């Protein structure tokens, strides 16, 4: 895309709008990627936490407590700066993933969000009336069928508003990856702001974030109407 006319019109330095656009794309990639990965991880975590089996439940609870009980920024630093301390990690096949700031940030964001989403899904699963599960089993459904067709759809409907809030919070959390050198929207804004000795770029980035938040809020509201409790359509 050619942003030169816009830059000239707004009297901005050359390539600044292009950079901001690229940063925005990275922010959106981080948001969508981490939401999908986190959901994929949150589902087994929530199932383990509600399984009633001692060890899987304990593991899931420990995971959730660890990731919800510490700041995301610290988790990012541990994953990006911390694990490279070990020789074994630097020679492991996973190093290409941890070496790249973008993938490392995506991993940290996903692991963090998974803990929050797992708690929401767990609450949703626990809120499904026991009678529905018993009825499904009495009808001759296997435990898998019971979860696939009865418990999980009901839990999803109950958890949708909470999950939507997590997605909105996640957009704001992605801004932290700029601390591990990823040039997302905040990273670009920080660079432009440092170059110009003003906070204009940061304020503009804030407006863009607020606009994306609004879009996400409206999208979540639509999904809630689609999947929400029958009475609220």
């Amino acid at each position: 895309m050619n942003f030169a006319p816009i830059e000239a019109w707004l009297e901005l330095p050359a390539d600044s709008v292009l950079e901001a656009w690229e940063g925005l794309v990275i922010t959106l990639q981080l948001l969508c990627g981490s939401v999908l990965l986190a959901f994929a991880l949150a589902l087994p975590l929530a199932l383990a936490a509600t399984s009633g089996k001692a060890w899987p439940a304990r593991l899931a609870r420990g995971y959730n407590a660890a990731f919800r009980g510490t700041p995301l920024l610290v988790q990012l630093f541990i994953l990006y700066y911390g694990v490279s301390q070990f020789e074994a990690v630097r020679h492991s096949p996973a190093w290409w993933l941890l070496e790249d700031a973008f993938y490392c940030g995506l991993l940290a964001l996903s692991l963090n969000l998974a803990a929050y989403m797992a708690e929401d899904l767990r609450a949703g699963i626990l809120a499904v009336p026991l009678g529905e599960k018993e009825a499904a089993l009495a009808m001759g459904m296997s435990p898998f069928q019971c979860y696939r067709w009865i418990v999980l759809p009901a839990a999803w409907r109950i958890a949708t508003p909470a999950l939507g809030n997590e997605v909105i919070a996640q957009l704001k959390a992605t801004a932290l990856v700029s601390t591990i050198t990823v040039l997302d929207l905040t990273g670009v804004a920080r660079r432009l702001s440092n170059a110009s000795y003003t906070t204009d770029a940061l304020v503009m980035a804030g407006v863009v974030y607020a606009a994306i938040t609004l879009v996400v809020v409206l999208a979540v509201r639509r999904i809630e109407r689609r999947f929400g409790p029958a009475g609220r359509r």
Partner: protein
Amino acid sequence: MDDLWLYAGQLLEGAWVTVQLALSSLLVGLALGLVLAAGSLSGRALLRRAVRLCTGLLRGIPEFLIVLVCYFGLSNLINNHFDGAVEISPFAAGVFALSIVFAAYASEVFRGSFAAIPRGQIEAAQAFGLTSTQTFFAVRLPQAWRIALPSLGNLWQSLLKDTSLVSVVGLEDLLKKSNMAAQATHQPFLFFLAAAAVYFVFLHASQPVFAWLERRAGRGFEARAA
């Protein structure tokens, strides 16, 4: 491990800054949140809309960006208009940034909890001849506080975790101190894990306090809950 003991004092100093930062932001944020809630419940449509727009914007912008804007923006503002006569400390900028974020969320919580108080109680208070100030402090605030406490507990947990953001603008809090120790000893994993552990302990240590506050605020409501 020896390095950890060597830098334990530094980490504790940082942890103390984190606690001070969190508690100051909590107090300022609560007061500001109440004021904003009053604004968003005001009968004046213009004021109500302006306040709701502000809190909505604040809740839509990353906390990290707000911290950056407050720190660099406030120092620029003072440099340009007051000739650099006042030095803005990273601590003050941090408290300002964290408390406006906290206040934006707290105002929504307070708005909901003030709205949840039955209208009849306020009418009853007026019928007894209580002034509006008396009604506020004796009837409305104690009840709104009870309804708001569980949500405020969640906000406090977010606030405590968000204090780590100010380390980026140079305030020597827990995370900054562990970062410095990590660079000096080349043991980032150890020191960031130690920082994570301290945050974890702080969060879990504050839970009984909120549980006690909730019990205290809920006196007389236990029977209904059971």
